[in-house]
Each structure stands twice: as structure tokens, then as C-alpha cells.
């Protein structure tokens, strides 16, 4: 990378750049979903892609999530590399049979004969007063299923690098974005790079407590860590998982063995969740290293509320994370 300042672009631009680069590189890649072509995408992620790639490769579909998910799977079985955009992962629930009962099992159930190199991507998590049916965090629900990979970038740089890896992957990848981060700006190099799956990033180093998170709540963890350092004298190590499946357990375990305390921040509900899985794995791998039980910060166990203040209260936030770290460090 040159010494000159790296350009800054939005999260949505980074996603578009990843898709466009891969489409230029590989004629097997195409994008389909609701409003992705003529309308430039409901969130403008695919802006200009129809103009560059044409209607053969940028395809507007009917409002029929199960339909275009299944069509994508058929095309992937024939060796193409579809990118299926769900306007929101909340809408993927009607496609559950295709995305959970077909895509991740196709290779297995065909005795290795039919792979399914497909990317499902879209907005995950509460978008800001969208109401409960449109505010799903699907990671815990879907990560339970073997045969799929799951990436959840927290910044534009990762969005591009991880999406390019997802498109080149031979297996189905669930790619979780956040409507709340699409306008976030960040440094993204123009040159090509890929971020391998299963490699977490340490966003902040610290000796006192490890905070593990995924996607948007990584920012809340960072904010909490700064407050904890300034006001409580506690130095947190913040780990951004980047992918949920595969999970980079090695980085997490190494950190917890150093700090002896851990808080897991997961924006989905707590019961049988990504957070409970990570906590269980840490308990198994770091049992003798832990100074306290693993603490977890999740969304409250209620449907995402419509009211703005209640929604903010329901989700993980810096205050809740700070409180959990203080408890983990016996300071609460």
C-alpha cells in the first residue's frame, strides 16, 4: 500500500466494489434479487451495476424470496456463482426451506456430486424502528446449521475483503450486512485484497478483559472499551470475529488466556445463540484460565420494539457492555 492516504468510501460502496470486481473477473458470477437492477438496489448497494453488466447478470426478481433463493441454488448446482440479495435477512425466513434445507445440504445429500457455491447477502439486525418483523438478527438462528459459512463484517474494509472471499468460496455463504452501517465510511484500498474466513481481527489490545463481538456491536464494544479505559482504568481487548462460521477460536482463546476474563457481545437473543456458543467454547478451552464466568450481552428477550427508545434499550449498547465488563472484573 502506498504512503498516500487510502481513499475512504462507504460500506455500501465497498460491497458494490467487491461484487463488481468479482463479476469482471469471473463471468460465472451474477446478482439477483428484488430491485437490484433498475432501481439500483433498495439501499443503493448495486448502484450502477445494471449499467455496467446489463440485465443478463443483474436481475430484478419478483417479490419471491423462496423463489429466487431456489433459482440461485439451481444455477449454483450447474456451476454458476450467484449472489442472491435479500433486501433484509428478515425476508429470508420465507425462504428457509431453500436456504437451510437445500443449499447447505446439497453437497452432502448428493454424495459430493452437486456443490452449491452461492452467496446470500443483505441487511441483518435492527435497522432503526422497522418493527419486529423487519428487525431480525438471523445469525444465531442460521449458524446452527452445518454446511453453511457466515460472514458478518463490521466496517467497509472487511465488507469488501470478506465479500470477495465469499463469492469465490465453493460453499454457501450467508453474508450479513447492517442497514445501520451502509453509510459508514472507512478506508478501503483500491487494489485487490481478500480476507480469509476464520480470521478474527483484534481491534484494540488490552490486558484486563476480552470482549468478543461480531458485526455492528463491535462498535459498541469499542466505545465501551474507551470509556472503561478512561473512567474505570480497565483495558479491554476487543476481538471482531468477522466470520461466525468458521469461528476463529484460536484468536479468542489466546486473548482470554491473557486477560482471564471475557464478555461476549451478540446482537441476537441469548437462548441457544452465537453468544452462548462462544461462551461455551471459551469455558471448554479456557476453564483453568478464567477468573470469572464468561459474561454475555445480548438483545433483550423480546421482539424488537417499534419505539425508538425501547429499541435502543433492547439491543446491546455501550452501557450494557461496560456494565458486563465491570462485573466480569469484579468491579460492579
Amino acid at each position: 500500500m502506498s504512503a498516500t492516504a487510502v481513499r475512504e468510501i462507504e460500506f455500501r460502496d465497498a460491497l458494490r466494489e467487491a461484487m463488481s470486481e468479482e463479476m469482471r473477473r469471473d463471468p460465472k458470477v451474477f446478482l439477483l434479487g428484488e430491485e437490484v437492477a433498475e432501481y439500483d438496489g433498495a439501499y443503493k448497494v448495486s448502484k450502477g451495476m445494471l449499467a455496467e453488466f446489463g440485465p443478463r447478470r443483474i436481475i430484478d426478481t419478483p417479490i419471491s424470496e423462496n423463489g429466487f433463493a431456489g433459482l440461485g441454488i439451481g444455477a449454483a448446482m450447474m456451476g454458476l456463482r450467484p449472489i442472491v440479495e435479500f433486501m433484509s435477512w428478515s425476508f429470508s425466513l420465507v425462504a428457509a426451506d431453500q436456504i437451510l434445507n437445500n443449499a447447505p445440504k446439497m453437497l452432502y445429500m448428493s454424495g459430493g456430486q452437486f456443490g452449491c457455491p452461492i452467496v446470500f447477502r443483505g441487511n441483518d439486525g435492527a435497522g432503526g424502528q422497522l418493527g419486529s418483523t423487519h428487525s431480525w438478527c438471523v445469525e444465531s438462528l442460521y449458524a446452527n446449521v452445518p454446511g453453511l459459512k457466515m460472514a458478518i463484517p463490521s466496517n467497509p474494509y472487511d465488507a469488501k475483503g470478506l465479500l470477495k472471499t465469499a463469492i469465490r468460496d465453493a460453499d454457501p455463504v450467508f453474508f450479513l450486512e447492517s442497514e445501520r452501517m451502509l453509510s459508514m465510511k472507512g478506508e478501503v484500498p483500491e487494489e485487490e485484497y481478500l480476507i480469509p474466513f476464520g480470521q478474527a481481527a483484534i481491534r484494540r489490545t488490552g490486558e484486563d478483559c476480552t470482549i468478543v463481538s461480531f458485526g455492528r456491536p463491535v462498535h459498541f464494544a469499542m466505545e465501551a472499551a474507551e470509556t472503561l479505559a478512561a473512567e474505570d482504568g480497565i483495558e479491554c481487548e476487543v476481538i471482531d470475529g468477522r466470520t461466525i462460521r468458521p469461528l476463529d477460536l484460536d484468536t479468542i482463546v489466546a486473548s482470554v488466556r491473557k486477560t482471564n476474563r471475557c464478555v461476549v457481545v451478540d446482537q441476537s437473543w441469548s437462548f441457544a445463540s452465537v453468544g452462548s456458543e462462544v461462551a461455551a467454547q471459551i469455558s471448554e478451552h479456557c476453564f483453568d484460565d478464567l477468573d470469572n464466568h464468561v459474561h454475555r450481552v445480548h438483545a433483550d428477550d423480546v421482539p424488537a420494539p417499534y419505539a425508538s427508545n425501547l429499541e435502543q434499550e433492547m439491543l446491546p449498547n455501550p452501557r450494557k457492555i461496560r456494565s458486563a465488563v465491570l462485573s466480569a472484573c469484579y468491579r460492579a
Partner: protein
Amino acid sequence: MPIKTAFKTEIEHVSILDEHGQFDAKLAEGLIPDDDLLALYRHMTVCRHLDEVAFKLQRSGRMGTYPQNMGQEATSLAAAYVLEKTDWLVPCYRENAGLFWRGVPMEYVLLHWMGDERGNAIPRELFCTPLAIPIGTQMLHAAGLAWAAKYRGEKQIACTFFGDGATSEGDFHEAMNFAANLDLPVVFLCQNNFWAISVPGKIQCSAPTLAQRGLAYGMHCVQCDGNDLFAVAKVVKEAAARAREQSRPTFIEAVTYRLGDHTTADDARRYRDQAEVDLWKARDPLIRLRGLLKEKKLWNDSKEAELLEFAEREVAGAVQRAEGIEAPATTEVFDHTFATLDPQILKQRETRRTSSLGQQSGRSASHAPAGGSH
């Protein structure tokens, strides 16, 4: 303003060789030469015999659940016969005759129903997708395969099979809508056998024909006698040409009947009248085809006896081959979860443990608690 008719249509029913042996030679012209007719009859007879043997295998504990094809053989066979070898066959699970005609070894299907994923590892060059047990999901895959063929500029089409019950699934409607709106070369071949396990057709659809369901999607629809090899061959041939030349889908309702139970886990006597079954036994595709062959002086009782012996040998051989395949090694349970297994799955395979992988025996005893030591 006067009320005008906005749309009017009709559904054709195609029949060439009916249950009474009436044969419309004009409609049949150029469809199936006599040599092929003999081969198709032999093939159907072997498939019928396989059904009987598979049923016995299940009853004697040598096979898991098995869905008999009996009575429906003509539909998938006629389709496989008229399609190109490179066209996709996208089956559900009652299409043995068509799959075997394409070249899928009989032991694959037996192995599958004996409970082995390797039976579904159909060689890619046969262009058959795995048997699809969830109802209707494969129709969308057929639309995707057809879409991919069109995308690549190949003249390949996809023919997908499903039953009357599947036409109530969302996947059916979504696949039909996509295929019509995206101009996809798909043949939707519905085998209407009147019973979705115990659920009668009238609960699936209130319209007089299933075929007309396709009208709503703006695609060509036709009904045919599904027990009539010629009728199915004719409508599939026309649908294939429409797909190949105009990239347009067709919905075919092939009216047939499942003479056996839904599967070996079902007992159809509990919900069907024997009189209905007897009526359809008389409409058996094998009986009418044998009658035609005899009429054409191509068949006689001694040939039939020879054929039955041949069928017994063929099926016995396939059963022997399927049963001769060793059970997979238990470590193979992880194979094909992913194209490349990730470290956590590799560790599960290596340790033969799927849980508590971090708890290594002896570690707790040798390590003092580290809490507060830093």
C-alpha cells in the same frame, strides 16, 4: 359499457393409446419407432419388477422406506425417451423408469432407499439431479438449471417432475412464475396420481384440471393421459421444442394413478376404495402397451416369459450390487459437509467428538487456576 370477455381459453387433453387399446396412429406418427417401443416396454417391465422386489426387500428389513412407482412408469419414461441426453431430469422420487432410461444404474436408486447418500451421487454426465424428497423444492432448482443453461447460451432444457400435492406448495408457484417471467426453458411435468399420501386431489385444487394452474402464469398448459406412453411423448416433445426454440416453459398435467401405496410406510387401503384401484388397474400403461405390441405382431407369450426371466436377473443383479457396497466408514460422516472441511470439523473428525472439544483430559489436573495471577 358492455361487459366483454377479457380472457378465454381451453385445456386440451391428449390421448393416443387409450385403456381400451384404441390407438390413434395419425397422432402417433413419427413418435416412437417399433424397435424403440419394444425397448420401452421391456424397460417398463423391468422397472415394474424392481418395484415388486424393492417392496419385498423393505418388508424383510433389507431396505428402508420405498415409494413404489407401479402404474406411473409411462410418464417419466416417455419424457426421458424424447428429451436429449444432455437435458436435465429434475426428479422427485417416483421417476425410476425415466432415470434408468437415462442411464442411472438401478443399484444407485436401491442404494439410496437402503439409506445411503452415495446412491444420490449420480454421475454428472447423466444430467440428473438427486432425488428430492421435500415436496416441490426441486422445481425451483430446475428453473435455476434452465436459467444457467440460458445464461451460458446452451440449448439445454430442464424437465422437472412432481405430483399433484406439490402444486399446492409455494415452490411450485414461484418456480412457475419465474420460469414464465424470465423466459426459461423448463418443462413442468406434473404426475397427477390423485393422492398426496392420503389427501385427495379435491383438497389440493378446486379447478377442474391441474393443468389450468399454469394459465395464471401465462404459460402453455396441456393435460394428457399419463398412462399413455405416446401421449406423454407427444406433449413432452412439443414442450421441449417450445423450451429449446422459444425459451418458454410448459406445464403438463399427466393424469395417472399410483397403484401401490405412497411408500412402504403407508397403507392406501385405509383411504381408497378398491373399486377405484381396480378401475385404474385396467388402465395400467403396461397392459395397453403389451396389447398394442401383440396387435402389431411384435409380442407373444413366450417373449413375455423370456422378458420376465430377464427382469428377474437384471433386478437380482442390481440388488446384489447395491447390497454388496460396504457401509461407509464412520469417519466419512463428515465428508461433503463442505467442499473444504474447516478446522473445527476436521477436529471433530480427528477426535470423533462433536462436543466439548476444548476439554482435554488431564489438563485441569496439571494446570493451576490462573485467576488473578497477572
